[in-house]
């Protein structure tokens, strides 16, 4: 879910101290520390799955399907087995990487597109601005999930079981195409605000090139409101991915992601195998919540007015 109240850039405040201040404010908040711990945990899991489990998630024995976890999460299958008789802990741990990779990739692509278009629109104005602003209007009309649904069902391909790229590729593209607008809007606003500031005018008068002005003077300001919405947006992407998976057009099984696990888990939740649904759900909610809390705090820290 994106937010409407991104803080405005504060161009007169020296950037370095703004960030430092923000960091200091954040480091003092217990909820932020808690969120950071969750995120660290999740990122570690995505980067080094073997730290958490030594089981192979593709070793599945049908007869052992849906063994509930032990009371103390011990034994051969600490989290039990999934619907296919694979070690559930391994499945969950190995499903983390595609989820995180997908979310981060979408994020980075969307931010780059948003920043570039936003700065161009804000800086040059005129027809370019008109064009980009119209494009924004149009894309905002199609919400991320619906747009992604459209793209994925139009360009649906058969089940592939290739590498990470081919599993997360289609959802990444679909989510990026409908995910850049917010960043573009904020960047554009910040750019327009900054470009009329005295020091930018001064730089212009001194003959600085457009590119230099955009990168040295405007970008650092534009990045403030964009940064503030990044964590929340990552959370949103993770949620959207899970929705796509439940619809059956996100990451395609047998590849896993949290969304795929949830989609599978919902089938069994009603029958008393709550853990198949509950554990990925907890992980997903925890992560999204951590991102959201982090984002909320970041926004506050970058916009002292609302503190």
């Amino acid at each position, binding site marked *: 879910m994106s937010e*409407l109240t991104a803080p405005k850039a504060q161009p007169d405040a020296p950037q370095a101290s703004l960030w430092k201040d923000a960091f200091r404010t954040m480091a003092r908040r217990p909820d932020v520390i808690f969120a950071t711990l969750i995120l660290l945990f999740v990122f570690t899991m995505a980067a080094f799955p073997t730290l958490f489990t030594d089981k192979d998630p593709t070793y599945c024995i049908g007869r052992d399907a849906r063994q509930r976890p032990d009371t103390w999460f011990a034994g051969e299958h600490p989290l039990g087995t999934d619907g296919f008789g694979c070690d559930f802990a391994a499945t969950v741990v190995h499903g983390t990487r595609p989820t995180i990779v997908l979310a981060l990739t979408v994020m980075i692509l969307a931010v780059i597109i948003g920043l570039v278009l936003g700065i161009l629109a804000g800086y040059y104005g005129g027809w370019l601005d008109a064009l980009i602003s119209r494009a924004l209007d149009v894309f905002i009309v199609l919400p991320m999930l619906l747009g992604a649904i*459209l793209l994925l069902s139009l360009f649906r391909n058969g089940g592939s079981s290739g590498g990470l790229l081919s599993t997360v590729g289609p959802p990444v593209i679909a989510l990026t195409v409908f995910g850049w607008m917010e960043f573009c809007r904020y960047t554009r606003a910040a750019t327009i605000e900054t470009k009329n500031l005295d020091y930018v005018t001064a730089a212009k008068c001194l003959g600085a090139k457009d590119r230099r002005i955009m990168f040295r003077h405007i970008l650092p300001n534009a990045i403030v409101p964009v940064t503030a919405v990044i964590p929340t947006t990552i959370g949103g992407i993770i949620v959207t991915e899970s929705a796509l998976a439940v619809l059956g057009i996100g990451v395609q099984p047998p590849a896993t992601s949290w969304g795929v696990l949830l989609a599978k888990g919902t089938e069994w939740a009603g029958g008393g195998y709550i853990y198949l649904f509950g554990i990925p759900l907890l992980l997903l909610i925890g992560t*999204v919540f951590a991102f959201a809390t982090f984002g909320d705090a970041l926004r506050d820290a970058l916009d002292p007015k609302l503190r």
Partner: protein
Amino acid sequence: MGRYVIRRLLQALLTLGVALFLLHYMMALSVQIRGNPALLFFGGKRTPDPAMLAQVERLYGLDNKCYERPGDPCLTPFVERLQDYASGDFGTTLSGNRDVGELLAVYIPNTLRLFMFSTVTLVILAMLLGTWAARHRGRVIDHSVRGTTILIDSVPVFLILLAYTYIIAVPLTQWARGIWGSESFMGQLFRPNYSPDYPWTTMIVPGIILGTVGLATLTRLVRASQLENLGSDFVRTAKAKGLKKARITVVHVVRNSMIPIITGIGYLFAFMLSGAVLTEGVMGIPGMGRMIFQGVQRQEVNLVIVGLTVSAVVVVLVSLAVDLLYAALDPRIRYE
């Protein structure tokens, strides 16, 4: 005022036109890149008789040459499509050959009813919580309101729904029926599925659950705008005028806070549409969202496109309404 309205109307029309074209273009691209759905009709790998292919293409309105040139915007078919839409012809479904226009007539009112419940829920909850948090700024209440709403917002709405239908709905319904009987309002309220026999009652719970989409966003917005207004000079003036707290809140804070909040609701509306896809799918509500859901599952591209077209129209209308409301609320825009 008049000029403002006209300008906004033109802008909305332009946006809508471009959005519809975008939808059309994506479809055209998919045909150009992925291959003609008419070809898929014959199973992809077989090479059908050209004359027969032409038949199918005509049937699907794909007989224009532009569909063979990747990147071609296919303007003629686009205009034809718009004309069809304008004359109420939204095509038919592949399976069952049903008139999509007729389906829309059934689906749209259902979704509107769903949205009515969720919008009311969202606005009331966000206003109460946001105001409450703003009043206790920086204290425990403030933090817990924000934490809770963020947490609620972190749970994807369809998962709340699934959890509801799988775990809570059945015992709750049985309990309610034990007390009030099964034909009573309460006996129907918590039902795990929508029932056309009780089109209002069984819509309430999914509506409320869908209403939590964007709760954190809107609460945050309410809080922020209330804080801004509470600290504003005109509220100080109102205090200096010896007005009671309640009057200050109602007359001077709420109305001013409404402006960003209305923008927020308009913006969240689009997200609610996304939420509706899964909500209606899970609860079996025959609405626009489920039409899209079904279109995806049955690979009825036309249903998806029509669904998104309607959603685009609605979003454009809502944002137009928001802007007009804006003008009604804010004389600075009205007298521009």
